[in-house]
C-alpha cells in the first residue's frame, strides 16, 4: 500500500524531471501568478466588482485553450496552404463571435450579428494584406497577426453592441424624439455608433501614438525574442496596427448595421425593452 503511493509519487517526480527545463522554470511562475489572481478575486469579492467567477473560469479555460494552441502552434505556424490558414482564421473568428455573445448574454442576437462582422472584416483585411504582399504568406505571420486583428474586432464588436443597447435603454426619450421626427433607425443611432467606434479605436490609438516609448507591443517583442531583426519587427508592428485599425472600423460599421435590425423592426419601431 505504502509502497504503491511512493511508487506513484516516484513516477510523477520522474515525469517532472523528464520535462523540458524551460517548462519546469515556467510552472512555478504560473503558480505564483495564480496567487496574485487569488488576491484579485478576494478584492473583487470584497468590493463587489463581480468579476471573480469570470476570472476563475477565464483562467481555467484560457490556460487550457492556450496550452492546446501551444501544442499545435508549431504545426499551424508551419502551414503554407493559404486555404487552410484562412480556415483557421475563420475558426478563430467563429470563436471570437461566440465569446462576444457569451459576455453579452443579456442582449439578443449578439452572435448572429458579430459573426459576419468579425468574419468579413478579418478575412478581407488579411486577404488584402496577403495579396498586397504586406504579410509573408505563411502561418507563422498570418496566424498571429490575424489573431490580433480578430481579437480587436471582437472587442470592438462587443463595445458597439453594448453601447447601442444600453443607449437605447438609457436614452430612450432622445431616440424616440428622433424616430418621431421621421428619422430612420440608422439616422437615429448615428451618433451613438460613431462614438462607440471611436471609443473602440481609442485604446489602440493611444498605444499607436506611444509606440516604442510607452508600449512595446506583443508582436514586436515576440519576433525579437524569436530572433528576428528588431528593425524588421518594428516595421511589422506598424503594419499590424494599420491592419487592426482597418479591420476594427469595418467591423464597427457592419456590426452596427446588422444590430439595428435587432433593435428595430421593419416598421421602424424600437424593440428594445425599457430597462427594468
Amino acid at each position: 500500500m505504502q509502497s504503491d503511493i511512493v511508487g506513484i509519487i516516484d513516477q510523477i517526480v520522474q515525469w517532472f524531471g523528464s520535462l523540458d527545463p524551460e517548462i519546469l522554470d515556467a510552472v512555478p511562475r504560473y503558480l505564483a501568478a495564480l496567487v496574485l489572481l487569488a488576491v484579485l478575486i478576494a478584492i473583487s469579492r470584497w468590493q463587489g466588482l463581480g468579476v471573480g467567477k469570470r476570472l476563475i473560469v477565464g483562467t481555467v479555460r484560457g490556460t487550457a485553450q492556450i496550452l492546446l494552441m501551444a501544442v499545435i502552434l508549431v504545426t499551424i505556424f508551419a502551414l503554407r496552404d493559404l486555404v487552410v490558414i484562412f480556415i483557421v482564421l475563420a475558426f478563430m473568428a467563429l470563436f471570437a463571435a461566440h465569446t462576444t455573445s457569451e459576455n453579452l448574454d443579456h442582449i439578443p442576437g449578439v452572435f448572429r450579428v458579430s459573426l459576419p462582422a468579425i468574419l468579413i472584416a478579418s478575412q478581407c483585411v488579411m486577404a488584402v494584406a496577403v495579396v498586397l504582399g504586406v504579410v509573408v504568406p505563411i502561418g507563422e505571420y498570418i496566424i498571429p497577426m490575424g489573431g490580433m486583428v480578430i481579437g480587436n474586432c471582437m472587442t470592438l464588436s462587443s463595445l458597439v453592441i453594448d453601447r447601442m443597447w444600453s443607449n437605447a435603454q438609457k436614452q430612450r426619450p432622445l431616440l424616440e424624439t428622433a424616430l418621431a421626427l421621421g428619422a430612420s433607425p440608422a439616422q437615429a443611432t448615428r451618433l451613438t455608433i460613431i462614438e462607440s467606434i471611436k471609443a473602440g479605436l481609442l485604446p489602440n490609438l493611444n498605444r499607436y501614438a506611444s509606440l516604442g516609448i510607452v508600449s512595446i507591443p506583443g508582436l514586436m517583442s515576440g519576433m525579437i525574442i524569436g530572433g528576428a531583426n528588431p528593425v524588421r519587427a518594428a516595421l511589422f508592428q506598424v503594419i499590424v496596427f494599420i491592419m487592426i485599425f482597418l479591420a476594427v472600423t469595418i467591423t464597427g460599421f457592419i456590426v452596427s448595421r446588422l444590430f439595428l435590425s435587432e433593435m428595430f423592426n421593419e416598421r421602424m419601431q424600437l424593440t428594445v425593452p425599457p430597462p427594468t
Partner: protein
Amino acid sequence: MTTMGTPPVLEMRDVSMCFDERPLFEGFNLRLDRDEILGLTGPSGSGKSTVLRIAVDLVSPTTGTVLCHGVPVTEYDPRELRRRMILVPQRASMFSGTVRDNLLWGLRVHGLSATEDELVGALDNVFLGREFLDKVAGNLSGGEMQRVAIARGLLLKPDALLLDEPTSALDHEATLVVEDTIRAVLEERHIGVLIVTHNREQARRFTSRVVELNNNNRKDSEDSSSMGVSQ
C-alpha cells in the same frame, strides 16, 4: 365643424393595447380634425403616452385600426407618417448642439434644409427671438425646450401635432405662453392638435373637446360636439 367627406387627420377605431398580456385599455376611439385642439386626459399610467405612440406607429396596437387621412398607418412609410403627424414626447429632448442644429435635425433626416429666414420664422411661431438660434439647446429652460421642440416639428410642415404633456414641467406663466403658442400655430397652419394633459383646468380652458382614457375602457366626456367616435 367637420368637413364632411374629408377624412380626419387621425382616427383611431376600437383600439386596444396589452403589454405582456396585461390589458392597458380597450375599445378606444378618437378622431382628430384640422383646426381643432383635442385634449386627452386620464390617470397616470392609463396609457396616454401609449396612445400617441400608437398614432404614429411607434408601437403597434394589439387590436384596432389607426388611420391617417383615411389610410391605415401601416400602409405609410413610417418616416412619412411621422412627418405628417409630429409627436413631441413627454420629455422634450434636445439633440446636442445649438437650437439651430436642433431645428435643422428634423429637416436633415428628410433630406431637406431651411433658410435663415425660415428658421427665424419657426422660432417666431413659438414666440422665441432669433437670438435663440445660436444658444446651446441643452441649456434652455423647460418651457423654451418645449417651444423649440414644437418649432422643430413645425418646420416639417405636419398636418397634426401630438403633444405629450407639454406643460407638465412648467410653471403657470410658462404654461400660458406655450398654450398661446399652440393656439397661434393652429391659427396660422390649420393643423390638428392632440394634447395630453392631466390638468382638467387646462383641458377646459384650452381644448375644444376632451377624450378620456380610463383603465380598461374608454369614455368620451366633457364637450359633446358630436364628432365622434366609432360608428
